[in-house]
């Protein structure tokens, strides 16, 4: 490559960088978190607080159940993992008998999440988010609270820009999309804790 071409290339890259949102030094996560918290209304704060308290209630119960199971080591065999996962699932299902939709995704929390999604969709390239969410082959996953998410079904990648805006969850509980619906799933036993419909606009 001659010097002139190289210099022109560098200038073009510099211009691109100067226009890029990445040229700032602070991370997007931190910036988004700050913005989210500062622009939140009292009503939204209350909604999130209630939602988080429901999640904590679930965590309390699941940890009680977990505490009665033999501990799963970080160096487990496949057999130990399978036994643990299935035992945990069955025991927790029994402990949560009667659980129904809306137990965790309370009305105001669900509304907050829907609005957050809509804001993100309006802000960003909708097609890109839809592509991430809808390309997963999981459309026929049954929406049933307290039933396991089928282990053979693909998991949707949670679009990070959306995830950074949602209320934080304990590491054992995950948001997960199935089409436009959003689920809460337990990481260690794959149980569908709760779900809300039409989370995506």
């Amino acid at each position, binding site marked *: 490559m001659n010097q002139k071409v190289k210099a022109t290339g560098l200038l073009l890259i510099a211009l691109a960088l100067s226009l890029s949102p990445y040229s700032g030094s602070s991370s997007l*996560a931190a910036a988004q978190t700050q913005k989210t918290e500062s622009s939140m209304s009292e009503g939204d704060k209350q909604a999130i607080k209630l939602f988080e308290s429901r999640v904590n209630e679930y965590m309390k119960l699941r940890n009680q159940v977990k505490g009665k199971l033999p501990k799963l080591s970080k160096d487990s*065999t*496949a057999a130990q*993992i399978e036994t643990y996962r299935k035992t945990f699932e069955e025991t927790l299902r029994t402990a949560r008998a009667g659980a129904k939709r809306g137990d965790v995704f309370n009305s105001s929390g669900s509304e907050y999440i829907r609005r957050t999604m809509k804001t993100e969709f309006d802000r960003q390239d909708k097609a*890109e988010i839809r592509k991430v969410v809808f*390309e997963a082959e999981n459309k026929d996953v049954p929406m049933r609270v307290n039933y396991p998410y089928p282990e053979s079904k693909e998991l949707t990648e949670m679009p990070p820009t959306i995830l950074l805006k949602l209320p934080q969850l304990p590491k054992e509980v995950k948001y997960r999309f199935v089409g436009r619906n959003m689920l809460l799933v337990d990481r260690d036993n794959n149980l569908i804790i709760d779900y809300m419909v039409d989370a995506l606009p």
Partner: protein
Amino acid sequence: MKRLLFSLLILAFLFSNGLNTVSYSQTASGAKVAAGSNTAPKLVLPLKEGSLRFAVIGDTGTGTDKQRQLADVMVKYRTAFPYDFVLMMGDNIYGSESVQDFQKKFSDVYKALLDDKVKFYATLGNHDLAIQINYEPFNMNGKEYYRIKKNNVAFYSLNSNYMDKKQVQWLEDELAKDTSDWKVCFFHHPPYSSGGKHGSDKQLREVVEPIFLKYGVNMVLAGHEHFYERIKPQKGIYYFISGAGGKLRDGDIKDVSSLTDKGFDRDLSFMLFEVVGNQMYFQVISRTGETVDSGVLPNQRKKS
């Protein structure tokens, strides 16, 4: 104007540190070796004494004959190039995850390597139950994301299924204090890809790329796409996709992509790496034993 000047300064810094010297040797042996044959491996790596050597596989967990054939080639190459560990790019177990599945799709396939004490370090793909983090042979130590250090290289395994605030914060904290010569991140979804089925994960990229740039990550390895692709360096970072360890999406690399430096989507493949000081050598090998790509990458952050 300030941003423009700042960007020019960054570029000048990268330029002076040898980014323009990135060189690739576009080798392709041409001589196809039948899978399972006794033909000797054609190693193009330098095999320097004391170097760090490792392999990379992705999207492996099928339990098919082809996955096993590729594993046989990995074993064969290890006789010529004794690597100590293997990085797995996710989708470690497709479908159900019973004891038999772990055997058929992982431990039986790589038995020769496991018996020889080769360590595997996994990351989670979109087909993996998260409880895999407790599976001893995956060496995830009960964590969805983790860091390991090997010689002068730090490896970060990330959970790209779920890049939440906690993980982003952890990554920033770890990278900020990391003084390793090389920083390598590996995870399932590729920030850049020429795949027709998936393509670049722009959502993920929007969140992780600024962090990689800020803290000087050298190289990113991913899977998800069922082919091999070497991406043209993006903002000074090397990107590879190695997602054809067990599944193949034949012909999926878009011909018109401006991202591709080298692609291979005709057969399964794996990668070998050798780190010698400030040089990262790589070789990509197909199921038939053919070398489909190789080269050397200088450390962008170090003067040679």
